[in-house]
């Protein structure tokens, strides 16, 4: 009551006093503009988070998230991913339900086929060490199979490592080719020649060769065709990474030195495909995208489903993984794995997202019920308190 009379007085008072006093010039100058913004009276939506308003949102979130979570979980479970550790017993590799294949071929155990190779800590041994890891598939991989190599305890995200590259060199800049960035130290020059590609990342390029053979029931080995196109991002392959201008890569890279740990120069990385040489070699590009965590996997090859026949990409049966063991990881207690996985729309096998969705959805639903109770019990009380008459 008081307030309303207050306002009324003010409104009545203003015009009269304005007319009485003649000094309108000064009054007008100082009088504030009566705009909604300046008077802080802009029209506004004034939402309040009460149990009543939030309740439906919680139920809706719960009802949406739980199905999404179930869907994700099921999808993830349908993904076939073969995962195995070589230093445990072989027979365990024949998975029936869990269709992932992950083979650790580091060769830590004496019993492991790659044990001998793993003892070799030297990079540049001229005689490549090879080992063969047999495994069996109890269930066929029906669709495209993606072959990964995985490294553990490998800190690709170490700061010194991450920055040790020269992106303009990799983009084909000629001056950077001859004079790489200082960030590449100590992998910048060798024998007074600039290293191309310079830096720690390039220098430590993963150089194991993995080959997959299907053992026919009759005992003959069939090489499974591994496609190396499309393992790197399209934009990386075509924009970010470029060879220096010139027809002949050998000429272009003249005057540069190969990275210390490499066996062959960058322009000879892939003898089979001339478009896959130099900086635009896809294996190289994949390696150059530094992983976020010390345990990571990188796409190695794709086993494509044969377009014409209905037979599975990888049928049931015995397989052999042939490893050319070059990459030493034992020194830092690393692990090397080979992973076979199918891919769905949500990527590889990852139950986390599904479980998380289910959990959050259920929590929301549960909270919704709790809030409903609270709202029912206390909401009325509050309203009563507010409106005493």
């Amino acid at each position, binding site marked *: 009551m*008081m*307030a309303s009379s*207050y306002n009324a007085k*003010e409104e009545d008072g*203003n015009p009269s*006093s304005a007319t009485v*006093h003649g000094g309108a010039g000064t*009054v007008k100058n*100082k*009088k*504030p503009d009566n705009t909604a913004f*300046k008077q*802080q*009276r*802009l029209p506004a939506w*004034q*939402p309040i*988070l*009460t*149990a009543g308003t939030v309740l439906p949102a919680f139920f809706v979130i719960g009802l949406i998230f739980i199905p999404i979570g179930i869907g*994700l979980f099921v999808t993830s479970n349908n993904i076939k991913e073969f995962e195995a550790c070589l230093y445990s017993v072989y027979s365990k590799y024949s998975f029936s339900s869990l269709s992932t294949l992950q083979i650790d071929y580091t060769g830590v155990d004496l019993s492991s086929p790659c044990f001998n190779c793993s003892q070799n800590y030297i990079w540049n041994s001229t005689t490549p060490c090879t080992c063969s890891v047999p495994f069996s598939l109890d269930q066929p991989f029906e669709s495209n199979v993606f072959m990964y190599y995985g490294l553990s305890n490998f*800190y*690709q995200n170490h*700061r*010194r490592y991450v920055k040790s590259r020269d*992106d303009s060199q990799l983009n084909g800049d000629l001056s950077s080719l001859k004079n790489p*960035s200082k*960030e590449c*130290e*100590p992998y910048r020059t060798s024998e007074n020649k600039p290293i191309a590609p310079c830096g*720690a990342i390039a220098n430590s390029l993963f150089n194991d060769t993995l080959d997959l053979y299907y053992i026919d029931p009759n005992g003959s080995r069939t090489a499974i065709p591994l496609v190396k196109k499309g*393992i790197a*991002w399209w*934009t*990386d392959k075509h924009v*970010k990474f470029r060879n220096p201008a010139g027809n002949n890569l050998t000429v272009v890279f003249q005057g540069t030195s190969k990275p210390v740990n490499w066996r062959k120069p960058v322009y000879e990385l892939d003898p089979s495909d001339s478009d896959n040489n130099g900086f635009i070699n896809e294996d190289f590009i994949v390696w150059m*995208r530094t*992983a*976020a*965590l010390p345990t990571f*996997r990188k796409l190695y090859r794709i086993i494509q489903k044969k377009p014409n026949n209905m037979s599975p990409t990888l049928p049931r049966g015995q397989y052999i993984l042939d490893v050319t063991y070059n990459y030493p990881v034992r*020194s*830092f*207690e690393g692990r090397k794995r080979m992973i076979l*996985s199918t*891919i769905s*729309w*949500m*990527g*590889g096998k*990852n139950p986390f*997202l599904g479980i998380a*969705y289910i959990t*959050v959805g259920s929590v929301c639903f549960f909270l919704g019920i709790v809030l409903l109770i*609270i*709202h029912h019990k*206390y909401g009325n009380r*509050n309203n009563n308190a*507010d409106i*005493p008459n």
Partner: protein
Amino acid sequence: MNFSTIRNFITRWCAGEENWVDTRTVYIGHKEPPSGSEAYIPQKYPDNRIVSSKYTFWNFVPKNLFEQFRRVANFYFLIIFLVQLIIDTPTSPITSGLPLFFVITVTAIKQGYEDWLRHKADNAINQCPVNVVEGGEVVRKQSRKLRVGDVVLMKEDETFPCDLILLSTSREEGTCFVTTASLDGESSHKTYYAVQDTKAFTTEEDFDTLLASIECEQPQPDLYNVFGFCFRPLGSENLLLRGATLKNTQHIYAVAIYTGMETKMALNYQSKSQKRSAITVLIRPHPSSVSPLLSVLYLCILISKALINTVLKYVWQADPDRDEPFYNQKTDTERQRHILIRAFTDFLAFMVLFNYIIPVSMYVTVEMQKFLGSYFIMWDDEMFDEELGERAQVNTSDLNEELGQVEYVFTDKTGTLTENNMEFIECCVDGHVYVPQAICNGQVLPGAMSMDMIDSSPGPGGKVRQNAMSCVTCSLGLACQETEELFFRALCLCHTVQVKEEETVDGIKMGLHQGKSTSFYISSSPDEVALVEGMKRSFFSVSVESRFELLEVLTFDSVRRRMSVIVRSSGGELYLFCKGADSSIFPRVISGKVAQVKARVEHNAVEGLRTLCVAYRKLSVDQYEETCHLLNSAKLALQDRDKKLSEAYDLIEKDFILLGATAVEDRLQDKAADTIESLHKAGMKVWVLTGDKMETAAATCYASKLFRRSTQILELTTKRTEEQSLHEVLFDLSRTVQEDSSQGNYKEIFLEICRNCSAVLCCRMAPLQKAQVLIKASPEHPITLAIGDGANDVSMILEAHVGIGIMGKEGRQAARNSDYAIPKFKHLKKMLLVHGHYYYIRISELVQYFFYKNVAFIFPQFLYQFFCGFSQQPLYDTAYLTLYNISFTSLPILLFSLIEQHINMDILKKDPSLYRDIAKNSLLRWPIFIYWTFLGVFDAVVFFFGAYFLFYNTTFTSNGQMFGNWTFGTLVFTVLVFTVTLKLALDTHYWTWINHFVIWGSLLFFVIFSLLWGGIIWPFLNYQRMYYVFMQMLSSGPAWLSIILLIVTSLLPDVVKKVVSRALWPTTTERIQVSERAHTHTHCLSHIRSGPLSVPCAGFPLNPDLSLLTFSPRHSSFLLPNNCLKVKMFFKV
């Protein structure tokens, strides 16, 4: 060069130094005595150049940089930048260097431009021509070439170029008129007097023959104090200050005594600005002082984080294969570095990586918020006063939020609670009461208020104008008895009012409302104007005929609280008329009808009228001679002049014969009672500090509802019996507290009682006492607010945390010295209840939100260190690190903190009890900060581990390709930006189009920026790590799903907390929000007034409407019975 000259120079220089503390001797026209005649040391004075500019061309860059780096934010950035430059840090120096450079450059350009303008203004002033008398001729000189001792010829409307002693004027009586509008804002014309002995010098030639010197103090900033000798004492009435303007006088001759930077204006300007900043920095306990404290805490967190990481790094690296695996070798220089140096650089690098946890950008944002926010106060239409044509002013914008934290309000009475628009009500001569007819028109309000004598500012003394001191003739046919005639004569003679003929004065206008608008009475004390006006209107008219000669003026001062004049009538009789407060007159009265007058005075005082007593004394010639002697010797004194003068006055003003008393009414200001009531309901304790009589002040307090009839009143006076009661209370208390209570304990207990009272009235306060009460009353740093309108309130205003000046009729000194100036007292209500409340809410959210968003920003980086071998690898890209606080999340919170309104403005005004919800800094308490920090950490954990499990040893693209570490960071960052912005959106209660625009706009900006940043190979960058990272991430379905999931998860706890606490333990604010929302469609808001807290005190009889209400238990502390105590303090002066 030989030694002796140097030594000479040194000794002279030293002598000059010694002289500095002494007085200075100024030789008029530079006619120094021959050097042999007496010990004469030539003194060095500065030239008359005024330098208001800060920089010169040469020192601009270093000085400006120094000034800028004194600011915390800039300095912090500079340190980070230098660390980044020196050592190998995870982020490039550009991340902090670029913003720093930008800010510094823009500020430097702005300040340089301002300084250039100042240079121009200085030049204009320094080069403006001045007429100087040299060798009997007028020479035009540039102002800056003026020297001490120059005789200057000033014409009308010219502004004085330096501090001058007036030698002679074109007016016969040797006076001139001056306005000091540019110095103290008072535009009234003040009278200055020429030195008696040089009054006759009227031509340039005369001054050539003048041989004289002036001895005066070295310059000091006090505007109203100057003492000096010529041949006779000089006072401030002879000193023309630089910056004042000559008015109504054709020309004057004056001699320069202070020049250049030594002028009072220049000194005052400097010392004042320094004082302000000192107060702001040292004394004020800021509500946001939590934020510096918090910054220190966060600095500790930052350092400990960096330390932990450094230690862990070296523990982890103990294995050389981890430190330097074959694939990641160090350079030789790195290897050879000493381990301690390496550890230290690592520590610094971690500091740089985590430095964003200290929200340096917060300081910039808070400053901007305060600066921009203060405009809303100035723009407020409701705080505009049509009558004065004034709106609220903001002098210091960094106190906006303290307006919402006020616990004690110290208010002046006259001009603040009352209008200070005096109206002559009655006079009492010898016990007979005379009432002018003019006021019998029913305008007098019951319980109307009064004014106090102390409030009349004792401006530059001696402003009595001769022709206003005019004869008194009886016009109404009253019997001209002797006492009556003397009484009215005294009223007409004993004042400092002057007549102003023109109308173009735009400051204090005392227009005569009936008819004669051409003549105004101007005085620094409005009650004198009221008296003179009342005299003129009702009883006498002022005629020009001069029958009295004014001999001496014993000017008013607030200690004596009286003024006197000595006049010689045409008959040759000498009179001393005295006018003053009753308490200062009655003890000095020897005859007259004391009892009747006293009774009338007390009656009037209870009515709330302001009373003055008039007395006179006849002086014999001998007595007059003695008086003159006393006064002159006192005026001659260089030291303790004030003291000696007051002693002299004390001797002269005695043995009075009482003539009578006057009563002047001062009405209560519009809605003063409503405002006081609101402040009470808002939980503020109102103290009225006045110089007025207790009865008058108490009447005002009752009228303004500060006291109610039902209020239990404790009085502490020296005379009255009520003293007993308080004394007993004190004694009881002291016995309970301490057996042997000394005097000091009484003081403490007394103050303790006062602090528990909801209202306190202190009477008879001198200006300085007001400030002392304020300091004493608030030792535990509650926020105090002082509001006043006159020069006598300035000390109080400066002392309080928030000083508010009312643009009243007693000049603009209070308004100029205050933090905020408002036209009327009623505007205080909106200022505190609405603006204060809003700004407190806004700033607290701003501060907390900044800490929250930076914790959420940096904590994932901290977690990431555990997964990257403690190598200081940043999680986010450089651009994201730089722009996070600058552009992605800056505007929403800034705009939020400018326009958030959690409750409608009208409701805040209607229900002052809402102010208690935010009292005692309740929104910036530690639990709340811990909650926000916890929220930040929780969100950070959700972001990081959400992304971690998504990335852990798997892929989430549909083509099997892998993502790298930058995608990881970008995912976390995207979730972060969205969460942090949406969190603010959830906190926003007032969604204007601006909020929508800024919140959705900045999210959109983030997306567009990310697309652009990753969409191009940037030619100027030496890395392309972000190329297509954002797009690739968005092309993956699980990334979208996880972004949504993580945002929902991190917002969930806050929403639940809000909803549950609102449902279970709602604050008043929240209830009102709900009910406001529930009832907006019916426009039924009136019930809100009767919220549970609108009963200010349980001791009041409960209003039947209110008694139905339930009391919220958390506010029960407000219901302590001792809240009802009201204490009157009587300070004996």
